[in-house]
């Protein structure tokens, strides 16, 4: 069987089913017929919104890292800790490499991912030509996606608060709220982002 012309075709990344590309409306969702994977779900103005959300998230990340995160007080004892303290909790002894891993998972990878998205989508949102290596940046942003665990961290904080709440009074610092907001924004941003559309736009703009 001779291979057909690959242009104008897309393959489902999950089950390899081959589809002809069609134009998808702004409120429509393209789904794989076999496995149900969402292939594309473009939204109007998504680029601009993603860019703005990523920018906001980046600012919040800076705030979350630099402000006090939680404050525990009991019997006049006070303990203030920042996100950095949580990361450095493992810095003693044999668990030291875990500090680095935590720094990556909580702060560095999410921040890097935001930067990569801004790098890729920022120019496109403004209608410019994509910058050099934009494709590379976006591919890495997608690869980092499972490893950026900011939202997992927030749930971890919630569990820890439940554990500690019975023992002492916990005051939530500004960084905590910044982090929560950051997580919400990240989730919103990821939900409106359509990979296929980004890739298509990227290659179209690049070609033009």
């Amino acid at each position, binding site marked *: 069987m001779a*291979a*057909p012309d690959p242009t104008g075709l897309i393959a489902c990344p999950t089950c390899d089913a*081959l589809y002809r590309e069609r134009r998808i409306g702004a409120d429509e969702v393209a789904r794989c017929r*076999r496995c149900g994977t969402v292939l594309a779900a473009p939204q109007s103005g998504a680029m601009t919104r993603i860019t703005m959300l990523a920018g906001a998230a980046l600012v919040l990340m800076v705030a979350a890292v630099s402000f006090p995160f939680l404050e525990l007080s009991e*019997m006049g004892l006070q303990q203030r800790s920042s996100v950095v*303290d949580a990361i450095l909790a493992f810095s003693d002894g044999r*668990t030291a490499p875990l500090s680095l891993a935590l720094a990556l998972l909580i702060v560095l990878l999410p921040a890097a991912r935001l930067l990569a998205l801004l790098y890729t989508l920022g120019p496109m949102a403004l209608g410019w030509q994509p910058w050099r290596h934009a494709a590379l940046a976006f591919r890495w942003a997608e690869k980092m996606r*499972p490893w950026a665990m900011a939202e997992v961290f927030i749930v971890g904080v919630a569990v820890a608060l439940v554990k500690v709440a019975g023992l002492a009074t916990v005051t939530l610092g500004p960084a905590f709220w910044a982090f929560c907001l950051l997580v919400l924004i990240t989730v919103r941003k990821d939900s409106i982002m359509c*990979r296929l559309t980004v890739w298509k736009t990227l290659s179209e703009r690049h070609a033009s």
Partner: protein
Amino acid sequence: MQAHGLEDALGTPRLLTARDAGLLGCRACGRVSAAGTGACARCGARLASRDPTSLQRVWAWWLAGLIAYIPANLYPMLLTSRFGHVRENTIIGGALDLAHHGDYGVAAIVFAASVLIPVGKFLAIAYLALSLKLPTALGRHGRHRLHEVVEFIGRWSMIDVFVVAILSALVQFGFAATINPGIAAATFALSVAFTMLSAQSFDPRLIWDAEERDSR
């Protein structure tokens, strides 16, 4: 979801796959390239019709994760020191402690997050990998969903490690009460990372390939 139901009822439609067409589909961006292309022209990802080492990598990471999971359970996760009295909490010990104090809810969460989910993940990945070769009870859609769930849930096991980190950073009251992380926190994190890699190494297209082979 409704579409699914329909398809399931009617039987999944037979579709042409990129491999059948002699083409390569990019898993990152969906672009289809001619056979023999090394890297995707759009996104630059490495192309392979099916990754030949996928299963091997699944098993290797799976084994590594399992090995790291053993010390994670044997060694203390938390070192709690209260008024000079040091207590070592292992994962299961911590959950049992909570249950003893009547915090059944929290105990259940901790137990689920640190015991049930990791063990379930190991079982699920092993099942998915084995199901490619052996007859299974679960259909392709079921296994596809299982893979999605495993991939989604993998990172949430990190909660435990984060809880330890926050508690250690927060509860530093000197003599009165101090919490320090134990070595198990590191091996547990390693185990989670390994199982995540294992799940990522699994090529879901293999599930559907098996279907075609079966139905042919």
